[in-house]
């Protein structure tokens, strides 16, 4: 472990999920076992195999698109986190921004607007779209759909320093963003970093893409029952939206300014998997290596971990492989360490998941309550996990590990501590 001066602590957090806006609402729902999954109302669901998602429907943006909505959610959680941390001045955050962001591309409404502007009648080609782009005024689309737009706009608004880094390691992105922030503070480049994971990409094409990979649950009725991590009858994940922001600081800086310390990021581990584009190595090696690297980085033995915040997507494959990894790393203790999945309630917030679930892990330790895994009706005998079934549980936990495993074989584990 690095010197105590470079210990990284969390002094502000902000969160939005389908359960609500802000820490208080989310925590209340999360500990009562409430599901945020509902029927999709944002677009027609005719013909879809999956008609449910954990959408954030209570926040609107003028010209909806995944980057516009992701940016808005990020703004709101950053505001909450900075207010709690009481750091910097308005519009002047004293450190860099690390952003976990879904990939950005032009969406169907914009494509249709270009097609309409082209005046093409029977058959629309990309040549027509190119002509329309050149003759109309679509510069707003150009900026909106640059990958850099969200990070640059957030940096403008909050005055983050230096070049904002937007990262994607699929479902591990939030963990990667935290790791980038931790590293920058440990290197002494900054005393504070703003980390945010955001994802609002529930739109027809994104949903259908996951559907085509057979990754999504099709248990549409009732929607709240669809996300069933560790259950024998689990059949896929539920797409969801949300955002989480963390203000990270060096311990010395946080103490010097008298900030309330909400917890520590004790260590981060990452490992890539070269086995398959969507499946984990059957031996679990990368997942095991990732958790061990996180523990080693934190300077902790596995027996210090009191809670595992599971990746727990509820796909047959993920939950099986996660158990393989956990049982290898934690040995005989594996089945007795509480290991719950927030995704049972909020769904899979994809790019944002690593940040949101790290936040919930910190809140669990601070509040002494572990959020449950709901919909745990039929235990899977091959996964003897203590998933905190269906009802939240009081627990005294000093260290937790939050797992994130992404498509493309990108894995990140974040070890969090209650006190520095």
């Amino acid at each position, binding site marked *: 472990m690095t010197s105590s001066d470079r210990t990284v602590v969390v002094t502000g957090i902000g969160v939005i999920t389908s359960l609500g806006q802000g820490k208080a609402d989310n925590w209340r729902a999360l500990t009562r076992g409430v599901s945020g999954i509902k029927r999709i109302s944002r*677009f*027609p*669901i*005719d*013909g*879809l*195999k999956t008609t449910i998602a954990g959408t954030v429907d209570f926040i609107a943006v003028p010209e909806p698109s995944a980057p516009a909505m992701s940016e808005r959610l990020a703004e709101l959680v950053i505001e909450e986190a900075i207010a709690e941390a009481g750091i910097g001045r308005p519009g002047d955050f004293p450190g860099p921004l690390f952003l976990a*962001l879904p*990939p*950005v*591309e*032009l969406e*169907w409404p914009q*494509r*249709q607007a*270009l*097609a309409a502007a082209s005046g093409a009648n029977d*058959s*629309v080609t*990309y040549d027509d*779209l*190119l002509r329309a*782009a*050149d003759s109309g005024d*679509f510069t707003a*689309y*150009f*900026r909106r*759909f*640059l*990958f*850099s737009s969200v*990070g*640059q706009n957030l940096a403008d608004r909050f005055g983050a320093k*230096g*070049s904002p*880094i*937007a990262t*994607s*390691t*699929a479902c591990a992105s939030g963990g*990667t963003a935290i790791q*980038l922030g931790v*590293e920058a503070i*440990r*290197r002494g480049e900054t005393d504070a970093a703003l980390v945010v994971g955001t994802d609002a990409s529930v739109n*027809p094409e994104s949903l259908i*893409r996951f*559907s*085509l*990979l057979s990754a999504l649950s099709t248990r549409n009725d009732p929607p709240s029952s669809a996300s069933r991590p560790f259950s024998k009858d689990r059949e896929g994940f539920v797409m969801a939206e949300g955002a989480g922001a963390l203000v990270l600081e060096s311990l010395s800086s946080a103490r010097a300014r008298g900030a309330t310390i909400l917890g520590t990021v004790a260590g981060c581990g*990452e490992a*890539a998997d*070269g*086995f398959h*584009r969507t499946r984990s190595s059957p031996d679990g090696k990368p997942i095991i290596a990732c958790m061990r690297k996180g523990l080693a980085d934190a300077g902790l033995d596995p027996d210090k971990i009191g809670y595992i915040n599971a990746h727990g997507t509820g796909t047959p494959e993920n939950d099986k492989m996660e158990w393989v990894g956990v049982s290898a790393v934690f040995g005989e203790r594996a089945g007795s360490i509480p290991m719950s999945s927030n995704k049972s309630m909020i769904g899979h917030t994809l790019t944002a998941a690593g940040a949101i679930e790290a936040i919930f892990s910190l809140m669990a330790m601070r509040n002494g309550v572990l959020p449950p895994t709901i919909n745990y009706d039929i235990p899977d005998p091959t996964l003897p996990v203590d998933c905190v079934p269906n009802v939240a549980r009081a627990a005294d936990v000093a260290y937790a590990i939050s797992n994130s495993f992404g*498509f*493309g*074989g*990108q894995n990140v584990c974040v070890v969090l501590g209650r006190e520095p």
Partner: protein
Amino acid sequence: MQHERDALITGIGLISCLGEGADAHWAALNDPNGFQPVLDRASFAPYAVHPMTALTLDKQIPKRGDQRQMEAWQRIGTYAAGAALESAGIKGDTAILERTDMIVAAGGGERDYAVDQSILSALPKAENPGAYLNEHLLGDIRPTLFLAQLSNLLAGNISLVHGVIGSSRTFMGEETSGADAVRIACARIGAGSGDIFLVGGSYNAQRADVLLHYAMGRTLWKGEPTSVQGRMPAGGGMTIGSVGCFLVIESRAHAAARGARALAEIAGIETGRCQRLPHQASEVAEGQLAALGAKLDPSDSAVISGASGALEATREELDWLATLGLPTRLTATALGHSVEPSFVANLALAAIAVSRGALFAPLDASEQVTAAGTLKQALVTGWGPWRGESLALVTRP
């Protein structure tokens, strides 16, 4: 002053319209008959693009199944990554690759143009457009296309094909994502939280959807092909180019321990931002230059500029570069502007030039001819057409 945590470039994988590898690029950039751009002017007229050189994919992506699973941008990147590992002498070296950290700068992947066009054609007439869109996205898209589009799946493919599995991160954000990828790798090497990195990206310019994006921004050059400088009086504009570039960057100690030959050192790298009000970008660059200052020796230096051709950014950069008074090359004239990998490719060209002690020939009449055998270092610039300013100093190792 040498230090064991210096960041050295020990491998370069560079592919573009000019060919494959350092020698091919050096030869094309020093053509005794004068530089001739390689352009495809027909496919996307009125826009020209610099097409990727013909690749024998089997050389770096041996399994046909892997080739099929990827779209062109991933094949370009995976190929360039393999070439970089080969150039560093670590291709297939499992013991090293298992602890090699990777940072990829990526955009997104190709659309299925036929599906897009057919849906766009039918939607206005569809009785229930929403249902029509769902039905045809579900029925017409190849199920695995998503994996050829996701930004992080270039890195995923490199792990799969080349076994680089120490760690894997993907940065998104056009030009600056490439520079930040290198910056973070160098910072981690400097801090001892990584010994050897594979860093780079890829760009397929031969795509209607990326041209569409820049056409919406009115940033493309439509006139007769000419150098980046030559476009300025007529309103500027970018000509995009297909490029794949990866670098193996490692600590001096790690390179020495395995007997690797270093081409160059990344003596410093800075990335920054501003809102692009007049002169702001120059101020950012001035600050970056000051941060690198102590290591810069203007007497034997040059500038490899990533100026894209987009009017405001390029004009301001050219004005700022003029204050430096160094021999300058605007490589977008030759390779085209390649967005995410552009900065990495320019670092590669700088490393090649420094390792040969010479700057390559001018690409425009306004670029100063230099004497051979004198170049010891090069500055590399990367200003995005919209946002982001980057500056690096490449020196002899």
